[in-house]
Each structure stands twice: as structure tokens, then as C-alpha cells.
């Protein structure tokens, strides 16, 4: 694989601005809430700028790993600090930058325990960034766990609707996933005989026997799959989304679930390609069940956030279906869908969060006629809903299209089922839009204000990203192809 070392530690700077932001926040007195928010905004803004820069500075003609930073960390165990960005990682870094920055801005009105909230948020996001850029199995696992355990407090302290139950369920489910990942990682490292956690070294073809690949792939797939919301391990996810505060829902559904799918791609698929081909059919089956199940359970929900939570399960199923096709288009579509879905759900949760903050209800039956009271807020909600349905010229459309085309070729039955489910999902999301936004004006909410310009900024950013990548999908697809084409062509 082509590797280009970085002339400047861009990737570490992203991590540094997260960790640095965390440390600065820890030393600010807790009464100075505005200072804390400004520090958070500046630090998260820096991560966004760097990730945008990296996305466009990546040399697509060269491909491979770029901006590489590598040095020994624990030599006796073969652990290296090894960061790099490729066509799979860069879209995810960009996504994290966007969602993180907008999530911080969305929480501008927070008043309770501000210092702890932003400190934990920064810890969580450093884990997410670290995982997307790391090329060392040890660090991938460490970042995975670092991004998970702040979730417990973030949901349990600032959440709503059965928050303690949801926080505990989520943490135990995800840590159960890591209980499968760690043995699998150690198993692979020990069996390779190289005494190294270096992913690139372990990717060397012929390192693992077919049996070892099948065995480790299954463990890794289930372990990371729990976080990716793969059916039947998804039950933590809607409950968690509903209970979490707005910014955490955004990061959680927008970015954290992608960690799971990205882990399957980066660790399981890249290390165990034969295991991938062996289990692909199972992956496709679970993915399609997830798509159909998410849509039909979503139909019967009365809580606005539950609707989005189940639509997430369904959309993450599309990612799984793309990964299961074992084709270039499938991988392209899956990674694009991760990106598009991330931005889309962030917008979804941020607009629902605004509605909930004002009306104090998420119950669809209680809402109605909101478009007359807060046209801008509902506008954002409708854009998110349309993206979720897959309306052309919005980012999700291209992602879903790519996945479906490739899945029709490989699994015609599953592909048909998934497309049918998507039609039903259009039905149920439009129904939700109709019930909440239109209809007679509700006097109970007549006094409420619309989104102010300042609070609108994060939502505008998200909408513009959705539209830009909907109009110019090639920017993203060309990027992903630099990684997916060499990988799939190199398969045995």
C-alpha cells in the first residue's frame, strides 16, 4: 500500500485540539459557562477546519495512506502510534468534524453542569477521531472504548425519558461488543506471529489461514456490529437515542454508530477478507432484516425520537447491505451512506431537539401545525426527512442508489426487499412530517419563538453539506474509490 508521511502532524493536531480543549475546559471555573462554550466552539471549529483541509488536500491520484504519522509506543508489545488517512477514513473524519462542531453550537443554550458536559463531549469525540485515523489495532480498541464510556454519564445526567435505564443498557451492550473485539484482536495478533498490532503489517495477504479469518471475522463483525446497530443487536440504539440530550443524540447516531460500521470495514474486512466473503451472505441477511424491521417498527412509534431511532436502524442496515456485497460499488455506497446518514441524522436530531426544547413534548399526537408557528425549525426537520427518504439531489440518494444497484446484482431478493422497505419508510416519515408540521395550528405552542439566527447556524451548515454532496456526489465517490478499488481488486 502506498504510504505518504505527513510534513505536518495534521491528524495529531485534530486529536490535540480535542484533548487540549478537554484540558482547558477542566481548568475553567464552572461558573464561567460562556467561556466554556466559546472554548468548545473554537476547539471543535479547529477540528472541522483541519478535517475539511485534509479532505481536499488528499492526493487522489496517489491513493493509499496519506498524512501518515508513525512512531513506536510500546516496543515490547509491538504497539505503534500509527495514524493515517485513506479513502475510507477521510469521509468519516470530515463527518466527525461537521457533526462535532454543529453539536457544540446546538448545545449553546445548555445551563446545567455545563463544564462537565463539554468535558465529556470532548473526551467522546477524541475517541471517535482517534478511531477513524488510527492504523494500529491496540489504539483502535483504546479509542473505541474511550468513545463509549462518556456516553453513560452524558445520557444518565443530561438525558430524558428513562435515561438511567437507557444509559446502562447502552453501555453494557457496547461493552459486550468490546468483549468480543478484544479477544479477536489479541487472537489475530498472536496467531500472526509478528508481535505487532500494526494494521498495515497484519493486512499482508497470507498472514492468516482461512479458518482463522472466518473465526476472527465473526467475532469482530458481531462485536463492532453491535455498535453499528446490526439486527438483532440493535435494541440499545433507539432507547439510547431517545434518552440522550440533543448534542449527544447527534454525535451518537451521526458518528458513534458509524464507528461500528467503520470497525467492521477497517478491522474485520481488511484483516480477514476470506472471512468476509464466507460470512457475506449472513451479513446481507441481517442487514435486510434490519432494514425491513426498522421501517415497520418505526411505523408504529408515537415518539418523534423513536421514529428517528428506528429509521437509523433501517439506514444502518443499508450500510450493512453495501458491505455485504463484496463489490467496489457496495463499499462505495456503504461508506457514502455512513457519511450521508451521519449528517442527515444529526440534522434530524438537532431539529427535533429544538422542537422538544420549546414544546417539551416528543409525542407526535400532541404536536401539529408547527409549520405555522416555527416555519424555519420545521423547514430543517422536513429537509432531514426528505434526505432520509432518499429524495434525489440530496446526499443520501446517491449513497442508497449505489448500494441498491450493487445489491441487485449480488442478492436480487434482498435488494428488492430493501427497496420495498424504503418505499414504506417514505410513507411513515411523510406521515410523521404531516402530523407534526401541518394540520391545524396548535394554540398551546402559539407563543413559541422560531429558531434564532445564531441557533440556526449549525442547522444551516448541515443542510448545506447535504445539498453539496447531493449535487456533487462525485467529490465523495472519487475519494472512497481510491481505497475501495485497490482493496477489492486485490482480493484473492
Amino acid at each position, binding site marked *: 500500500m502506498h504510504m505518504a508521511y505527513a510534513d505536518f502532524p495534521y491528524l495529531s493536531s485534530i486529536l490535540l485540539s480535542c484533548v487540549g480543549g478537554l484540558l482547558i475546559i477542566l481548568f475553567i471555573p464552572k461558573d464561567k459557562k460562556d467561556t466554556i462554550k466559546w472554548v468548545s466552539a473554537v476547539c471543535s471549529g479547529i477540528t472541522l477546519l483541519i478535517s475539511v483541509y485534509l479532505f481536499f488536500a488528499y492526493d487522489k491520484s496517489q491513493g493509499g495512506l496519506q498524512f501518515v504519522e508513525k512512531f513506536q509506543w510500546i516496543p*515490547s508489545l509491538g504497539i505503534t502510534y500509527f495514524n493515517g488517512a485513506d479513502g475510507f477514513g477521510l469521509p468519516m473524519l470530515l463527518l466527525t468534524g461537521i457533526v462535532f462542531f454543529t453539536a457544540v453550537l446546538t448545545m449553546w443554550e445548555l445551563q446545567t453542569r455545563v463544564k462537565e458536559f463539554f468535558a465529556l463531549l470532548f473526551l467522546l469525540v477524541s475517541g471517535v477521531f482517534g478511531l477513524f485515523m488510527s492504523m494500529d489495532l491496540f489504539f483502535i480498541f483504546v479509542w473505541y472504548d474511550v468513545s463509549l464510556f462518556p456516553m453513560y*454519564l452524558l445520557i444518565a445526567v443530561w438525558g430524558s425519558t428513562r435515561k438511567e435505564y437507557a444509559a446502562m443498557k447502552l453501555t453494557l451492550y457496547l461493552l459486550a461488543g468490546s468483549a468480543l473485539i478484544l479477544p479477536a484482536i*489479541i487472537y489475530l495478533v498472536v496467531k500472526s506471529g509478528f508481535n505487532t498490532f500494526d494494521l498495515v503489517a497484519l493486512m499482508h495477504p497470507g498472514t492468516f489461514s482461512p479458518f482463522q479469518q472466518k473465526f476472527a471475522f465473526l467475532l469482530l463483525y458481531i462485536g463492532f456490529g453491535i455498535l453499528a446497530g446490526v439486527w438483532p443487536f440493535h435494541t440499545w440504539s433507539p432507547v439510547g437515542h431517545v434518552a440522550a440530550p440533543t448534542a449527544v443524540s447527534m454525535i451518537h447516531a451521526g458518528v458513534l454508530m458509524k464507528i461500528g460500521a467503520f470497525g467492521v470495514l477497517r478491522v474485520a474486512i481488511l484483516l480477514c477478507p476470506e472471512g468476509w466473503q464466507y460470512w457475506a451472505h449472513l451479513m446481507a441477511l441481517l442487514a435486510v432484516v434490519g432494514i425491513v424491521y426498522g421501517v415497520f417498527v418505526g411505523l408504529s412509534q408515537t415518539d418523534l425520537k423513536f421514529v428517528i431511532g428506528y429509521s437509523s436502524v433501517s439506514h444502518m442496515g443499508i450500510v450493512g447491505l453495501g458491505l455485504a456485497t463484496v463489490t467496489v460499488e457496495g463499499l462505495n455506497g456503504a461508506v457514502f451512506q455512513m457519511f450521508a446518514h451521519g449528517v442527515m441524522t444529526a440534522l434530524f436530531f438537532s431539529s427535533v431537539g429544538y422542537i422538544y426544547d420549546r414544546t417539551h413534548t416528543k409525542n407526535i399526537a400532541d404536536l401539529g401545525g408547527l409549520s405555522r408557528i416555527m416555519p424555519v425549525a420545521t423547514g430543517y426537520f422536513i429537509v432531514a426527512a426528505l434526505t432520509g427518504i432518499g429524495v434525489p439531489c440530496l446526499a443520501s440518494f446517491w449513497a442508497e442508489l449505489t448500494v441498491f444497484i450493487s445489491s441487485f446484482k449480488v442478492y436480487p431478493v434482498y435488494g428488492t426487499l430493501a427497496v420495498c422497505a424504503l418505499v414504506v419508510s417514505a410513507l411513515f416519515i411523510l406521515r410523521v412530517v404531516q402530523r407534526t408540521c401541518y394540520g391545524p395550528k396548535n394554540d398551546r405552542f402559539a407563543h413559541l419563538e422560531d429558531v434564532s439566527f445564531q441557533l440556526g447556524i449549525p442547522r444551516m451548515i448541515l443542510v448545506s453539506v447535504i445539498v453539496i454532496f447531493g449535487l456533487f456526489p462525485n467529490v465523495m465517490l472519487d475519494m472512497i474509490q481510491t481505497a475501495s478499488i485497490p482493496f477489492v481488486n486485490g482480493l484473492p
Partner: protein
Amino acid sequence: MMSWIIFSPEFYFLMVGTVFLGLSMTRRVRPEQVYFIALILASVGVGVCLACVRLVGDLFLGTYRVDLFSQVFKVMLSMGLFLVVCLCTELDGIEERLHPEFYFLLTICTLSMMMLVSSVHLLTIFVALELSSYSLYTLVFLRKGRDRGIDAGIKYFLIGASASAMMLFGFALLYGSIQAAYLVEILKILPGVINRPVVIIALILLLSGFFFKLAVFPFHFWVPDVYEGAANQVTTYIATASKVAAIAILMRIIALSGPGSTYLVHILVTLSIVSMTIGNLAAVVQKDLKRLLAYSSIAHAGYVLIGILSMNPAGYSGAIFYALSLLMMKFTCFLVVIKVADDGRNLDVEHLAGLHRRSPILAMALMLSLFGLAGIPPTIGFTGKLLIFTAAMQKGYFTLVLIAMINVVISLYYYLLVVKAAYLLEPGKELPDLKVSPSIKVLAGLLIFGMVVGGIFPNYIIELSKAAAIVLL
């Protein structure tokens, strides 16, 4: 004459013990003064042990070995003593007139554990082990409000005495079958005869004494009651320093069996799995924080055993690393227990309510140490588990590692309940902020720093424990 320098840590602690013996007879010194003397002497003790780390030699006709392995453990033991003494500002669980005796027994116990980690002859092992056990029995009895301490003390003593008896029987059988009592000689003979039934039985009986110390199933019954019944500081000592010594001596003995017999390994695997499962499952329903930590100690005994039963250098060094991480993490938990229960009472989990406001630094230290115990990166507890699991995987014990990881998830549940109590629950009535002295804040800060840095930059400690483990083989 020069050779006696290698005995200096033991000399030093013998001298400290004599000082407290003298103080206990005069009864003219106020408790604060005794505390101050103890603090100074214990901190110098850490220095003495650190200064002697690189010494090597044999003493007492070769029954006493000073090497890197023993010296590393002596540093840990003296650190354990020092940390426990740091917590004795409010020694309310023990009557004031008994304070000098308390420090005396603590010092003697540390001294005997230091001798234990250096012993390389069956007799010295037995003598040192008994000396430390008897000091601990007495320490448990010292708890104010007699009933509780005596109840726990008697239970501790009875189980301990029967474990000692079994161990002695094991020594006798072993000596009878291979006519050797020096560990060096046993090391030569044992691998050849390891599959003889009598040797296996001898080894198992012999190990039971150490299993008792480490709280491995089926010798774990004393742990919850003793933890609950003893004064908080004594519990801290049992949970930290005493466990470290038990890990050390267990490694010395298991290392004797060389590549190991499959029978022995199977037995150890079973004990390890049962210990961690019982410990974790029982901890889930505990209300008293000390009982919860007791059951988590049983579970951790199971994890450490994984490293030891791997019987390879990686496993032994992993267990040494784990011992150090356990010392720090368990100590941090008890630091919080002692400071929150400032009148020496026992502490229920729900009494931690509102801790995040009453003392943010203690709450943070508690959270980090619990996450460390659960093995979540980037804490030192994760690195320890990674080392141990890697060693077991090298031996192909995949199922064992998987079971251990499932146990980790179970344990996370009750650790999270404690974190929840500290960060989420609000006390029924308004409680004032905790009075935490600046020195305790610094100590808590150092422990937080140590647990995180030990997780992120563990390289030096790993190298040190590797060097120490090589001595064993």
C-alpha cells in the same frame, strides 16, 4: 559484612516496628504525633526499598533470595504501607489508645510480607506467611465496637488456620515425595515428576494457603465479612498490600512447575473461572461498598490467576504489572471510602450520593479507579488486562479469555452503579462539602495521574516487570 546491605529494607522495617512497640508501651504520645511519626517512617521506607531495587544476593544458607523480582514487590509493599498510613488521619475505627499497636502490627505485617516475597525455602515461606497472617488477624480484631471486628476476626482466623494446615500438609507431602525443600532444588526435580498423583495433590494442598491469601475460590468465604468487619484502613491494607504479596508468592510457587502439567493447568483454569464468575455475580447485589469491593477482589484474583497459569514470561510479567495496577486502583477506591465515611463507619453505595458536588476530585478519582478495575482504556487496569490476556492467548486459551471478557462486562454493571451513585444520585438531605485536606487532594491527583499515565505510557513499568519475571524462570 557487605552482604547484609541487601537485607536493609527488612532491617529498616524491623526498626520501625521496634519504635512503635516502644511507643505502645509508653502511652505518652498523642495520636496525631504517632500518625506523624508513622507517616515519616513509612515514606522513608519507600525510599529505602527504592534504593535497594537493584541489589542481588542470597542470605541465611540460601533460604532467602534478594533479586529484582523480590525487590520490585518490596517497593510495592512499602508503597502500600505508606499509602495506608496516609489515610490514618481519621483513624476512628480503632480506639485511640491502640493506635501505636495498630502501626506496630501494620509494620510487622509489611516486614513479614517482604520476607515472604524473598523466601526460597519451604520453611521460610511458611514462617513468613504465618507471621503476616497473624498480624492481620489481630488487626482485624482491633475494630472499635467489638462485635463486628471479633466476628470477622474469628472467621478470618478459622479459615486462615485451616488453609495453613492444608498448606503445611502439602509441604510435608512434597518434601516426602521429592526430598527437597529449597525451591531451586524443587525446580530441578519437579518438572520430571509433575505428573505423579502425589505431587499434584501436594501442590494443590500447598497452593491452598496462597489461594486463601489471594481470595481465590474456594478459599474466598472470609473476604466479604472481613472487609466489612475490619476497620476501613485495615481493609485497605488487606485489599492492597496483602494481595500484592499473595500474587508474588503464588508466582514463585507456580513457576516451579516449569512448563506445567496439564492437570495443574486445568485446575487453575477452573479456579480462575469460578473465582471471577462468583465474585462478579455476587458483587452485583451488594449494598455495602466494602462488600462490593470484596467481591470484586475475588473476581480480580481470578483475572490474576489467568496470567499466572499461562506460565510464560509474558504471563508472569503481566501478573506483576497487574499487581501494581490493582494496588493503585483498589487503594483509590478505599481512599474515597475512608474520606466519605469520615467517622470510620461502613459505607453504603447510596451514601456516595452527591459526591460530585461535595468533592469533585474524589468523585473523579473514584470513577477512574472503577473504570480501571473494569479494564476500560486508557487506564492502567486495561493495560494489565491486555498483558494477561495476550499471555493466555499465546498459550491458546481462547475460551478462557472470552469468559474473562464476559466477566468484565458483568463487573462493569456494578461499577457503573457506584459511578451512578457518585454522579447522579442526590442525597436526601443537604450535605455539606467534604473536608478534604490539601495533601489528600494532592494524593488523589497523583493517583489519577498515575492511573492514566500508567495506561497511556506503560512502557517503563512493562519493561521492569519483564525484567523481574525473567528472574523467576
